[in-house]
């Protein structure tokens, strides 16, 4: 068997080469776009959120390196099926851990993924102030 040499671990490579949930959502309930081309990465995450406050679908589009694409792919996988409260608690470390680790210089890619998820959720909550109040109450009581 031929040996394979890749700059990232097999999970990261898999999410880069076979990204999950790539694209846009028609009638997305929340869209978050973070980063800038000047910094090398732009991530856009679109979410579909059902009436009971659960993320029923997620999509990403990313301008960036292999680990940025893998981070956004993994982030969409992590938030699918979660409630808004749960998804707001997804951190970059969760993304890095799920990817089996990223090189130190690429950790910022996972930070951007966390920020993109949060931005998409904030966009949703802005459009749905009544849910925002609920999320705030729930997180205070937690």
């Amino acid at each position: 068997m031929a040996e394979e040499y890749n700059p990232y671990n097999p999970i990261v490579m898999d999410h880069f080469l076979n990204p999950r949930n790539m694209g846009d959502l028609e009638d997305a309930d929340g869209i978050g776009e973070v980063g800038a081309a000047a910094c090398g990465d732009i991530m856009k995450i679109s979410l579909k959120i059902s009436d009971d406050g659960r993320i029923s679908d997620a999509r990403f589009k990313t301008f960036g390196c292999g680990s940025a694409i893998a981070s956004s792919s993994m982030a969409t996988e992590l938030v699918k099926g979660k409630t808004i409260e749960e998804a707001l608690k997804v951190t970059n470390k969760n993304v890095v851990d799920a990817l089996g680790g990223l090189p130190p210089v690429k950790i910022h890619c996972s930070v951007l993924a966390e920020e993109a998820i949060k931005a998409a959720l904030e966009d949703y909550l802005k459009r749905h102030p009544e849910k925002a109040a609920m999320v705030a109450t729930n997180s205070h009581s937690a």
Partner: protein
Amino acid sequence: MTKVYLDSQSSTPVLPEVYEAMLPWFSQYYGNASAMHEQGLRARAALDQARKQFSEAIQSSDPEGVIFTSCGTEANNLAVKGSAYALQHKGRHIIISTAEHPSVENSVAFLERHGFSATRVPVNSEGFIDPADIQAAITPETILIATHYANHDIGTIQPVTQIGAIAQEHNIQYFIDATFSAGWLPINVEEMNASLVSISPHRFYGPKGVGVLHKNRKARINSIIHGGIQENNRRSGTENIPAIVGGGLAMELAEKKREKRVSRVKVLQEKLWKGLSESISYIQLNGPRPGENRHPANLNVSTEFIEGEGQLLLCNAAGIAVASGSSCVSKNLKSSPTLTAIGLHITLAQGNIIFSLGKDNTFEQIEYVVASFTKIVERLRQMSPMWEDFQKGNISSVIAGKEK
């Protein structure tokens, strides 16, 4: 799986005959070239032979001017720091360009932290140094002018003969970094008035582990590696005889075969650029158009709306080895300084890919690369929010703006 190596400016395979020539010098003739016995004297004769091969290749009549180092970077360090230390009684000012290899740029930056000053003359949008800028930067304190011959990123061939004439007129030492040029471009140290020239054999089918600095009789340098009196006390440390023997032969063969190799890669370079520019939209060439002012093996492009590392990794997955000057690829997260120096728009620097051709590449490989790369660009654009914004008319194309 198809494998295409298009990173020949990073390194090349050792020629079979070079490899053969190196073999006896590992276990059969292993003596130290400083030793006074048969083994040592044999090694010394091998060093002399290699000195001849290198000096003849650059039209120098002085094989003793050849100093062996461990690599091109060390040769460049020796040229820059060695000149500065040797000439500091005359002045402490150095002139380079903004598009030098890190081994030159960072050596000068080091000297600046130790009491020297430097002027970095700009390069234009194709990477050319204007000799008039060099002339204008000269002060009574100037002790060294250092420029590359061909740029390591974008292949720009500098007017080194004109710069050499200016250096000569002002009696200033001139160092030409030819680590990306030797073996591919003709070098004549006399005509170029090159006080110092550096050479990197692993870029023309020689081995790694050897670099060369050629010094003419007038040039002054101090050693920067201290120890025994190897290389006439200009570079201490036991010489790497197998690599030096291999490097010398690779240099001789490169000169013999230069025209044939160059005419071949030139055709491939043109074919590759024609293919890419015809099948991919919003792609631009960085550096001069293929022709006499560009290194025949180099093709540096930027594809808009996508980033370079993703392109590089997908090329790798398709069996194609390329390089990129994108910040995402570099360990310090900075785009290639050359791309910054030519004023390339930041998004184009991010979308940078460097293809460098070698003598063994074929037409079929170029066709495969054009077809594969076209698909890779399409795929990454489908993923890119910038491409989507461009399609919707929210942002405009930097490349299209330039073409207008």
